[in-house]
């Protein structure tokens, strides 16, 4: 069984910069070491503060399942659409969603709108927390030694998934 969230997430891209790599998740490989949260908070805040991390690992205690949740960089980001001040906006040069801290009024609309719980709000900083892919070099992926996080074009994921699905046919002799 491959439990990959990215497999069912909308990954269409129509930014000006064209397609770019995205963070794909293989939850089966996640051991809940939290290195991603530490790397993220350090990259963005210069401190080890998991509650300020843009990626969070959801642990199912007692079930041995851990699922990292992070912004999937939707083609039509709901957080941007609902933001009343324009604080959450698409930076088309990268392209990622960015939050302008000065314009963010802390209404939490983006948190409500994000279908994945990937947008959060920091009490401490009074600003919305949304992944910006570290401008194309995501720290969380770099620190994930278990291979649960990958930074790749979504087409590469599609290719891997196709191969997995096709493997079912490659065993047809054993089946019949």
């Amino acid at each position, binding site marked *: 069984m491959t439990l990959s969230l990215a497999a069912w997430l909308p990954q269409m891209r129509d930014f000006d910069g064209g397609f770019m790599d995205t963070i794909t998740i293989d939850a089966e490989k996640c051991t809940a070491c939290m290195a991603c949260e530490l790397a993220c908070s350090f990259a963005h805040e210069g401190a*080890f503060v998991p509650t300020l991390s843009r990626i969070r690992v959801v642990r199912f205690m007692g079930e041995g399942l851990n699922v990292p949740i992070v912004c999937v960089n939707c083609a039509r980001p709901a957080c941007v659409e609902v933001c009343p001040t324009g604080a959450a906006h698409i930076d088309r040069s990268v392209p990622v969603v960015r939050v302008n801290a000065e314009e963010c009024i802390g209404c939490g609309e983006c948190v409500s709108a994000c279908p994945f719980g990937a947008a959060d709000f920091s009490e401490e900083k009074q600003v919305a927390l949304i992944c910006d892919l570290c401008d194309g070099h995501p720290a969380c992926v770099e620190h994930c030694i278990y291979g649960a996080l990958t930074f790749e074009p979504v087409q590469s994921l599609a290719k891997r998934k196709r191969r997995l699905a096709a493997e079912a046919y490659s065993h047809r002799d054993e089946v019949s």
Partner: protein
Amino acid sequence: MIRDIGAQRILNVDLSSGRIWREEVDRRDLLQFLGGRGINAKLLYERVPKGIDPLGPGNVLIFGPGTLTGTSAPSSGRTSVTCKGPATGLYLKVSVGGHLGAELKYSGHDYVAFHGQAEHPVYLWIDDEAVEIRDARHLWGLGTREADRLIREELGDNDIEVGLIGPAGENGVLFSCIIFSLYNSASRGGPGAVMGSKNLKALAIRGTGGFRLAEGEQFSELALQTREELSKDAGSESLFRWGTSGSVPALNELKMLASYNFSQVRIDDAEKLSGQYLEDEGYLTGRESCFSCSTACHRFVRSKEHPYGVVRDSGPELETMLSLGAECGIVDTEALIKSNQLCNDYGLDVISAGHVISWAMESYEKGLIKGRQADDLDLHFGNVESQLDLIRRIALREGLLGDLLANGTKHAAEEVGGDSWKWAIQAKGLEQSACDTRAAKSYALAFAVNPRGPDHLMTECYAEFGITEEARDLIRRITGDEKHADPKLLEHRSSIVRWHEDCYAATDALGFCAFTSTAAYAVNPKNMAQLFSYALGIPLSEEELMRAGRRIVTLERCFNVREGARREHDVLPWRMMNDPVPEGPTKGMVTDKVMLDGLLDEYYQMHGWDLGTGIPKRETIESLGLSGLCGDIAVD
């Protein structure tokens, strides 16, 4: 709250009066004792005077994550739990993984010290700065799984961290543990009973803050580099793939697998006790990490169709497989998954649980325990049903045998009498872990001088086997030649033990897992010192770090000396000293009194401890800067 990592705070709780107060840790103390285990040892020495009942209100139970716990340093999420131990009446430090230590740090506290005794069952809820003692009467008597679930439910947050005891701790079982984050256990020597004696069911924490480091960029870079090196280390690779029990097939092949209460060194079908078997047969469903760990040795398993129902829980590790498995003559994977779950749920240390049961089995087969005294159980080696039944009886102190075994093999053998003390695999009152100290001499010495009793979790000298290149390299650096990586040798054992003592103490103090520094070696004194320096912005050399390790070890020794422990307490279980290994390449070996005396002489000499008594000398105490603390017990 985001704070400076070097500004450490102690949260004190007096359960008798309900008073809660905080203290700052002096920076000089932090440099001297490094944090975690070190500061815990200092607090215990200062706060628990000689002769206090370990299960009375005078004992202090201290939780201290490492100084680097909560950072990205690899495998640095461990917590030292320290108190006067009920199994031995001596010093007790237990190290435990999971995520609770980091959560405590993020709440703005570095240590929690529990004093006194509550009037009725309570638990402590730390919600960042808000700290509350809450009623736990409705949780008393519940297993750790159910109590953990209820606490999360009533506090309305699934993502908090909980550390708690099960019925065994409540009932004062002398080898009851404290369970962190459901899967991780502060096991040895009975810290659960100390918690239970305080009427403290649990500790629940939500921490939303974190740290700023003095030189964060350098720290983060070195931490990542160390993490990558660690994941490539031969020892680490095996721990990830098969967990700790990956070594079972090799141990059995070499006839070094403790079995049948240490009377045998191999067992048929040993592969069923291995991590390889768990993986190959489809029991393994996941690998779990402790906080910030890059090894993930922890197993998550699902049993199939056995008579006890399907179990989904944390998986049995090496010591479970050996103590409850081979030592009891049991090689049934499904049964061991169940035994492991029961021990975790009741809150029992698997090592001692296995060894009290294997002692009872040998005593039964030799006719010393029978009939009513055996609670009418069939206690032949290999009886799974009896083991499962006994785990429950011990935890609940049910029946004559359950109650007898709940006090450990030392007390049980005193009750039963005859020669049964000879196969009580204990010293100082603690059951030995399933490592044969007849055939591995650094282990023999390390186990004999271990302040909490004979096990591998204060000083792990795995390197003496020279199994990996990294291990041989370490032995060469300690002794000058890698040919000394030979466990049968008596030469150089003291220097090997002492290096590992210093390193292990520093490892615990900073919060690292001993697997990273004394089984794999990618975390070492050099990069530990460097990470400490980057984090706190205070230069600390490798030598100073190791010296701080020795200071901790010496202070722990002083605690025991003050309680009356002397050279004669530094022994091994009778069987290790008298019954030769029955077969295999180490056939005929023992660590007899003459050998042990030779090892102790050299070791005491090296430490600057008095040869006749084992008490640290005044000059030793002075040179380590410990005169103010424990100068009064030193000898000239």
